């Protein structure tokens, strides 16, 4: 089991299957809040839903509608269980806050180089701890 340490963005504890992407995610024009699916045509997760997943991604891109779209995902019940991202911007931080799911950033090691799709991840945002159980083991 691998442990990462990060800075609390939004508190709370949650665990679930990891969904990982190395591409920044767009809100408006990037996801469909009704299904939680990424819809940006050239995105590697295009068509995949982050509902109930532990979403691990570099950060946000695109328009200022970012927080609103992830806010709508919460209301539609399609939000991820928790989010882990590397680069803080007002878009992703506000999105995390209005999604009200545990969120961490500023990690001691880059989660994108450690966590893979399907790994089981436990996020304790209050204590800033991420515990990763590799899918294979």
């Amino acid at each position: 089991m691998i442990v990462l340490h990060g800075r609390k963005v939004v508190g709370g504890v949650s665990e679930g299957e990891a969904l990982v992407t190395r591409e920044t995610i767009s809100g408006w024009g990037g996801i469909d809040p009704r299904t939680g699916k990424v819809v940006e045509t050239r995105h590697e997760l295009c068509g995949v839903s982050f509902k109930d997943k532990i979403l691990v991604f570099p950060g946000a891109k695109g328009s200022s509608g970012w927080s609103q779209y992830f806010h709508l995902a919460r209301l539609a019940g399609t939000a991820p269980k928790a989010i882990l991202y590397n680069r803080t911007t007002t878009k992703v931080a506000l999105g995390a806050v209005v999604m009200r799911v545990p969120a961490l950033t500023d990690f001691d090691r880059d989660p994108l180089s450690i966590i893979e799709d399907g790994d089981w991840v436990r996020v304790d945002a209050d204590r800033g701890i991420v515990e990763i159980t590799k899918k294979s083991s």
Partner: protein
Amino acid sequence: MKLTDVEQGMLDGAEGAAVQKAMDLLIRYGEALGAERLVETNNVCGTFVAAGPMIREFASKGNDAIFSEFNLDSTEHVAMPPVKAYTCHLIMGIDSEHPEMRQVSEDAARVQTEGEKFFGAKGINMLSTCTPYQVGNVPVMGEHCAWMESSAVIYCNSVLGARTNTEGRESTGAASITGRIPYFGLHIPENRHATHLVDVRVSVDDMMDWGLLGYAIGEMVEEDIPVFRGLESQPSLIKLKHFGAAAASSGGVEMYHMPSVTPETRSEEGALGGSAPRASWIYGPQERRAAYEKLNSTASSADVDFIMLGCPHNSIEQVWQVARLLEGRRISPNTSLWVFTPRALKEVADRSGYTDVIKAAGGHVLSDTCPAISRIMPKGTRVVATDSAKQAHYLPAITGVQAWFGSVADCVEAAVAGRWTGGLR
């Protein structure tokens, strides 16, 4: 976060429930950012009037409910007080005065008009555009603002020298009734220095070229801050508007430096804050062509059926140019041409006679919204042509159409001929 006495009072409910909820959100948001304190702002540009199907479902609960949920992130519905800060509403869901747009959804038009009345009575100015600086909201250097709309944020920071991060529907809602926003990112002088150098090796002069430069830079620089070297021609508002919108859509650029044009510093060294750039890029003929190819990557059929002009919204100078290009000509029967300009400037276009010229040619002048936001285009649209890099970037992703990008002259020729003949000259 450290709060002043006034801020602590607002958090403790001294100014009512809504203000208390707003402060709660601002603190959660500030802590998520790692901000140390809040800063006062008297210039908020956000979105308040309900737009889009999902938010409109809330409309039955009333605008106080819409404000609480979507502008304060408060599940508990509280009454909205008059705003404290000078606050403007940016883009609308639809153009409520344009027949073709109204019949798509009478309900949307009704909800919008009611929302305008409700939020107007709270002191929110209905600018109804993505370009507040074209409708009188022109902050001056050093002013702390809380703006949404990425194309307006990059203009505010870079060309006007005022300070804003890319805010959201919730943070601008909270700022409107508290006059506060987290002191983070581009509000802090040290964060406004350039981090990357772009060496421009081709001439950049017309509107199309400024869009290509922006689109190429966004991908290179993402969220960082470029300073440009080698730009010779003197840009104007409309060229920097197009450049910034492109850079903010292909990447997340919120600020740039062009020492002879942007006010913050007079030199490359000053822009870089005395340190070396983290990376340098060249913008030459290949990068220019690559940007052009990407912007036209979804287009295959030359049979254009819809021309979209004006993203971000056209200035009156641009509406005049379209009228001049269309004067005495007819748009092909199987092609539609929509020109978007803020409602306030459509008044000037009407009065100057441009709207009549464009209508006589078979075109339409619209306001308030755009196809990418409203998802409304002429029925059966498959192939679009536009003079805007941002619209060419988003429209295919949002509506599945093909999109050609070129100059306004290319677009007008396509409207008249019904066929795209643009290209990279």
